């Protein structure tokens, strides 16, 4: 949690330095003057030995450290929560993924998934970026889109996937489902190859958690 709190601080340092030059220098001078005044006033009213003063300073320092840790933990928690929902749903920002693809079959390592009877693999892809391995497969199929999506919804659920949907999208026969297990988030949808409604395809995308 503390590390999460430090991360934004480090990333914000350049801006903080710039803003600090505007605000903090003036504030610190005022703060120092105030502290000196208070200290002088306190010592005048309460004469203490050097040892006592050192003890007070030590306690104050410890208190400040605790306050800093609490503040850091608070913002760390907030940042942690924000990082957790940074890209909600099935989102990846690909910029340098390493992709391998296979025609006519599922690429090696492709996650286990039920196969609707009669469908054939057009292309499959394996993508690796930032130590995450994602997979995409495109199948050709015949028949109604809603039939195949409903079939996958039931089969995935019986295979232990947590399934949401089917969601109707563009029209009654164009649907998608989302599912997840311990390792992947999965999206399956039916569509068609470009400009040809007779070439129906099913696309599945697995994003590693």
């Amino acid at each position, binding site marked *: 949690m503390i590390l999460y709190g430090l991360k934004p601080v480090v990333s914000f340092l350049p801006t903080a330095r710039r803003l600090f030059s505007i605000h903090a220098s003036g504030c610190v001078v005022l703060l120092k003057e105030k502290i000196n005044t208070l200290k002088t006033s306190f010592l005048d009213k309460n004469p203490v030995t050097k040892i006592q003063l050192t003890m007070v300073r030590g306690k104050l320092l410890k208190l400040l450290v605790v306050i800093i840790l609490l503040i850091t933990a608070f913002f760390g928690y907030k940042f942690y929560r924000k990082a957790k929902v940074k890209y909600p749903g099935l*989102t990846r920002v690909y910029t340098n993924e390493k992709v391998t693809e296979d025609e006519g079959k599922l690429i090696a390592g492709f996650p286990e998934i039920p196969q609707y009877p009669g469908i054939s693999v057009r292309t499959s892809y394996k993508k690796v970026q930032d130590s995450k391995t994602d997979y995409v497969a495109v199948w050709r199929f015949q028949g109604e889109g809603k039939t195949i999506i409903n079939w996958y919804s039931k089969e995935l659920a019986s295979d232990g996937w947590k399934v949401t949907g089917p969601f109707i999208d563009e029209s009654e026969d164009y649907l998608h489902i989302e599912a997840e297990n311990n390792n992947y988030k999965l999206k399956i949808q039916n569509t068609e190859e470009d400009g040809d409604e007779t070439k129906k395809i099913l696309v599945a995308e697995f994003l590693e958690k």
Partner: protein
Amino acid sequence: MRKTISYIFTFILSINLWYASNLTRVVFAQSTDPVVAGAGDISPNTNGTQFQTANLIQAINPLTVLTFGDNQYPSGALATFNTYYDPSWGKFKSKTRPSPGNHDYNTSGAVGYYDYFNGTGNATGLAGDRSKGYYSFNVGSWHFISLNSEIMSSTQNAWLLSDLQANQNANCTVAYWHHPRFSSGANHGSSTRTAPFWDMLYQYKADIILVGHDHLYERFAPQNPSGASDPARGIRQFTVGTGGARIYSFGSPIANSQVRISTHGVIMLTLHAGSYDWQFINTNSQVLDSGSGNCVTGTGPTAVATKTPTPKPTLTATPTTSTVKPGDVNRDGVVNILDFQLLSNSFGKSLGQTGYNANADFNKDNTVNIMDFQILSNNFGK
């Protein structure tokens, strides 16, 4: 001890400022130059994500809203436009300049599309002539061309050529339509159907092409019509089929593809005199991709023997708001402590209140607030 306190003070201040900067992350526009925003593949046949992308458009508040086809699924019928598109993106109808897609043409002649944007039975309007579906307009010094990639024709190609010739003096040119020439999408992918558009736009030094069809966001480096990298005078294509329809998946990235994102969102373009900034913003109000580019300089075609370039008229040095730096309250050309002081004096003041300084209201939301402070701090010292 004093040193320790000052360090602690700095530390806490840093955390608070960082947190404040995150709270104001929804500040999209930081320039006084014109802003346009848009997406394609917008309204499914249900009350879906088009409402979230519409909220983004509302937050951006662009001068012009662009659409890149497939405005209403599944067939662009007027009834579904009125039921699903109108309550969401219809809020910006009066400033929308649409382009049609294949789903809009699933109703014969795209009657629903033209009836919705032009008015029932009207021959022309926001969507251009209903017998054509292509038109052009200007935003500031930029020229915008909306094309109809569903009905490709020699007539449209001839019109595009004449439009490009007639607008060679525009600082920069944007063209948009539905079907992408280049795409890494696993569902649709690249298509040569719009190659004639690319050829002409490249010859006449267009700068940006915006498309949809693949329900994804993809940004390309400037390239020529063959897909070869051309940093000096290539066109940058953005695929933004992310307006609300379900999201597709990517296959292998094709040449010059720089960023690929599968999520709903809109693109925002800030139009400067000879350059532009882009931001792709998701429905969580996060900027997932951003950057800047320069427009291709010079006028006239590069390698068209039959064309005689129109002489370029002398441009008058008209002062524009683009010369004012964001954060420069006193307009002295530098964003410094004086600007900070002026902003502080009008901090919290709204339009109509004593002390309100319009020059300090950088985002033009009629209030000088933390968002304006953020803009100033981002440009401090420049």
